[in-house]
């Protein structure tokens, strides 16, 4: 029996970069514990994703799906995971941080009566009585060492901090697991979802992000200029809380303490000042580029490349220069 279990929500056709990074966490935890890791695919596309998951370096890939898991709800997923763990005990159970795991993992921890660490950045050590992890606190300004002292513990991991595993040759055995009936809690009904569809890469998957702040003055002014830049770069589009609050872009674009936390290869911050809450969401990006007409803007303190300029001139100029390079 392996020590670590990685739970992957199986909803789509492909394993996401976050899923692959969660497997990276599994690898790190396994190395720390001197053990191995398994994967549990939970959701409607569990068997569809099992072949890819079997190439991530785990010992066993379990698949669990049922009509009750067709639509994600915290109640059903926590109950299903708890039922699985009742028959398959693991020392450390982890998943990538997402809006879903933020709400179902603590519920699962309560069902199991075990401690949990949220949005872990690093595994320090794993032994049978204690797990030591690093996480960020106080709007990402400080790092904290957390000790979970229990024979079983849960963790969500920040996917931008772990190495996405490349699916290789299939080495894991795949084992379907029967989901006990009647587990999905009544009391919650999924009504609908409003999601923007886009040709651009997903914020959590992208290597390059173009992020817009209030300085762009909205969808009738600077945002289309930044969108064109994003298109030329093949980048995803991100935004500050101010932009979302103003209704210029939908909530799924928000990067920051209360939005998405990302760490792409390149983060281009345009017309955004760099509030602490925003920095918490992107400061570990490999290269940060800032374009802002205010030389005192805090974003320049974390930028690797800074250009003090009016974005209304600089962004179209940059887009044209990149286009003419054919890049």
């Amino acid at each position, binding site marked *: 029996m392996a020590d670590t279990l990685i739970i992957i929500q199986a909803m789509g056709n492909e394993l996401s970069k976050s899923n692959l990074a969660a497997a990276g966490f599994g690898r790190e935890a396994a190395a720390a514990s001197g053990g191995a890791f398994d994967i549990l695919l939970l959701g409607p596309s569990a068997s569809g994703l099992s072949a890819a998951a079997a190439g991530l370096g785990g010992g066993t890939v379990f698949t669990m799906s049922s009509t009750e898991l067709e639509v994600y709800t915290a109640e059903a997923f926590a109950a299903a995971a708890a039922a699985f763990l009742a028959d398959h005990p693991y020392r450390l159970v982890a998943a990538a941080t997402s809006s879903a795991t933020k709400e179902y993992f603590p519920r699962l921890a309560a069902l199991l009566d075990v401690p949990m660490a949220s949005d872990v950045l690093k595994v320090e050590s794993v032994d049978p009585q204690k797990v030591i992890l690093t996480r960020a606190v*106080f709007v990402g300004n*400080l*790092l904290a060492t957390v000790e*979970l002292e229990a024979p079983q513990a849960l963790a969500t991991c920040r996917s931008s901090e772990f190495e996405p595993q490349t699916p290789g040759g299939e080495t894991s055995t795949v084992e379907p697991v029967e989901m006990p009936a009647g587990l999905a809690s009544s009391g919650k009904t999924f009504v609908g979802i409003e999601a923007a569809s886009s040709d651009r890469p997903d914020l959590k998957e992208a290597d390059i992000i173009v992020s817009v702040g209030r300085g762009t003055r909205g969808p009738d002014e600077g945002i289309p200029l930044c969108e064109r830049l994003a298109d030329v770069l093949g980048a995803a589009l991100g935004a500050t809380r101010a932009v979302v609050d103003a209704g210029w872009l939908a*909530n799924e674009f928000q990067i920051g303490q*209360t939005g998405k936390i990302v760490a792409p290869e390149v983060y281009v911050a345009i017309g955004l000042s760099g509030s602490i809450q925003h920095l918490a969401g992107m400061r570990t990006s490999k290269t940060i580029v800032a374009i802002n007409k205010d030389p005192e803007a805090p974003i320049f303190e974390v930028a690797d490349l800074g250009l003090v300029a009016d974005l209304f001139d600089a962004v179209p100029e940059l887009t044209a220069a990149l286009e003419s*390079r054919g890049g």
Partner: protein
Amino acid sequence: MKLLVTLKRTPQRDARIRISGEGAALDLDNVQFEVNPFDELAVEEALRIKEARGEVEVVVVSVGAEECEQQLVSAMAMGADRAVRVHHEGQPDSLQVAKALAAVVEREEPDLVLSGKLAVDDECGQVPAMLAGLLGWPQASQASDIELSEDASEATVVCEVDAGLETVSLALPAVIMADLRLNEPRYASLPGIMKAKKKPIATLGIEELGALGSTRSRVTGFRALEDKPPGIKVGSVEELVQAFEEKKLI
């Protein structure tokens, strides 16, 4: 109808938090405290429900030492009717706080529990969902809109999820976690502040609530982020493109 709002006493948002000594603890000597901003959204939402429906009692609860009564008073100054404090001197972990709150819920029998989705100090975001799990109640998080049905038997909640906006319906009683765009909390008025001084705060001891278990999650040290080497400023778009090429970004 009874609404129970949980709140945490947290260091003032944007306070500069320093590490003391070798990093075993934080230097909170000159730090002011306030109601966790996300819990303030939950208090505000409860008050709006009260104002819209009438005949709603808003009870605020916090787990902590005597100082957190200041924050309970702040919430009552906004308009909450009464407060409950579960006395705890130490550093309980999230599951212990959730168990204490579950015991309060069992005593108070609210129709709805409202909470902020996370606390701005530890940012664990675990307590409300753990509470829902312990109670076996449905939950909704990252709420940006809450509508109660006429007969208060269910709540329709819009949740800000990674993919966009998800709408769910919860049968009450339930636990809902507030997010930033849910509302804009009011400032306490002077009459509100005066009235709050006379509103009751009940104190419950842990022993009265049953076993919370031992503390199994603890922070053993803090450290600052590593300093980043300073970046460079370029003078033109042309130089920027050159720098991109040198760094092999494009």
